[in-house]
């Protein structure tokens, strides 16, 4: 009995010491991830934690919402934005580390419907009256929303379309409006419908790159994470070949 207790106590002490040692090595990164990149980042984050032992706390929202939150001293170490403008502004505002911003992905806009065959490969459905609602992300907050509006303008459809546009807070909510069938069509990110191994149902049209300004998605180290070695490690990992392969697999350009 005594022996058992003694043995248990020793084991527990050993475990505690080991855990303490592991924690001393492993850090934690609080990451703000633009909604369109949530899917691939879940994979990258898992691989990062396995490789380094650092854990992640991930928040997703629109890039505009993150900008407002970071200005209000949100405790994010790293921002993966859906544009290059927001990271640049954060650096200019003194809220991010100068020189730390880099492009981790170039986003592609798609027009998507859950109905197979509804969206043709020229996007001609946009000019039709076969739909009551088209979902886009809020152009003021989400770069994919701004790109969607640009594409509609390039096709000279923006004004005529206005009464049928429903605005989502993020590109993730735009996806949800379409996925639930409430909007027959929607502009979303290719990464949301071309999920490796689990492609979304329906039909989509990859909007030609000449209809909107390139969606350069930049990452940046924020002031809160300046002295966090795990945050620097995450940015390095994002630049590595393993991450790039995942990013390309989800349909992003690089």
């Amino acid at each position: 009995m005594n022996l058992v207790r003694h043995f248990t106590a020793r084991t527990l002490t050993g475990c505690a010491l080991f855990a303490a040692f592991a924690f001393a090595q492993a850090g934690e990164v609080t990451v703000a991830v633009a909604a369109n990149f949530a899917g691939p980042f879940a994979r990258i984050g898992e691989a990062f934690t396995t490789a380094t032992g650092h854990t992640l706390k991930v928040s997703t929202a629109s890039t505009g919402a993150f900008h407002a939150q970071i200005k209000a001293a949100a405790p994010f170490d790293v921002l993966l934005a859906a544009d290059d403008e927001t990271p640049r502004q954060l650096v200019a505002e003194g809220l991010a580390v100068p020189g730390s911003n880099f492009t981790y992905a170039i986003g592609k806009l798609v027009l998507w419907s859950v109905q197979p065959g509804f969206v043709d490969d020229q996007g001609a459905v946009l000019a039709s009256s076969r739909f009551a609602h088209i979902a886009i992300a809020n152009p003021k907050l989400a770069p994919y929303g701004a790109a969607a509006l640009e594409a509609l303008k390039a096709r000279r459809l923006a004004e005529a379309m206005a009464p049928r546009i429903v605005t989502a807070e993020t590109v993730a909510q735009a996806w949800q409006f379409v996925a639930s069938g409430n909007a027959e069509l929607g502009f979303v990110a290719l990464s949301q419908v071309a999920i490796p191994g689990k492609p979304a149902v329906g039909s989509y049209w990859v909007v030609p790159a000449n209809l909107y300004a390139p969606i350069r998605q930049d990452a940046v180290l924020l002031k809160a994470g300046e002295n966090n070695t795990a945050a620097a490690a995450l940015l390095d990992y994002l630049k590595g070949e393993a991450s790039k392969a995942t990013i390309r697999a989800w349909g992003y350009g690089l």
Partner: protein
Amino acid sequence: MSAAWIAIRLTAELAALSTASLLLAGTPLAWALARSRSRWKPLFASLVALPLVLPPSVLGFYLLLAMGPHGPIGALTQGLGLGRLPFTFAGLVVGSVLYSMPFVVQPVQQAFESIPERLLEAAATLRATALDRFFTIALPLARPGFVTACVLGFAHTVGEFGVVLMIGGNIPGETRVLSVAIYDHVEAGELPEAHMLAAGMVVFALGVLCALYAINRPARESAEQAR
């Protein structure tokens, strides 16, 4: 008309229409709940109170599914040739009626419950019909409950955010109510516009609640004096 005024008018219309619908549908419901001795009463009372407890995201999520093309409400409205409710003003009214239901039904129900049974029995012995008793005794005596119900139903609908965000689609003049407009201004960093609307909301809410307490106080005090 400026975007702010469009949002203000839309919000007022939504709150007024939702409160009116709730008074029409909620009064018989409150009466039934107040007078019922059924063993099912706790279940119905719980259903009415449910929006108090559930996060608006739960209500918004299920409404979006139910009112969508594959949901039961969506099938019904499409079958009637009314189209679908998400992203429409009518859809917001349906959402608001559910969301604000306890704020209208519960005060009215409590007012009905506080009416002594003997008053209604006395009227019945004087050959007042059930309808007579309801309109000439119950309704006037429940006046403070109705005032509370109107004010809280209206104000709570003005304060609605989560449900509208999930089923509204943020369309100017159709579904972009004040709370959503304020949220968008804040997120877009347009703080002066956000401040203007948000401060207006605080003043409005305070004014409404003050008016409610001022109106209902004399009624209660005079009732106490009469006793």
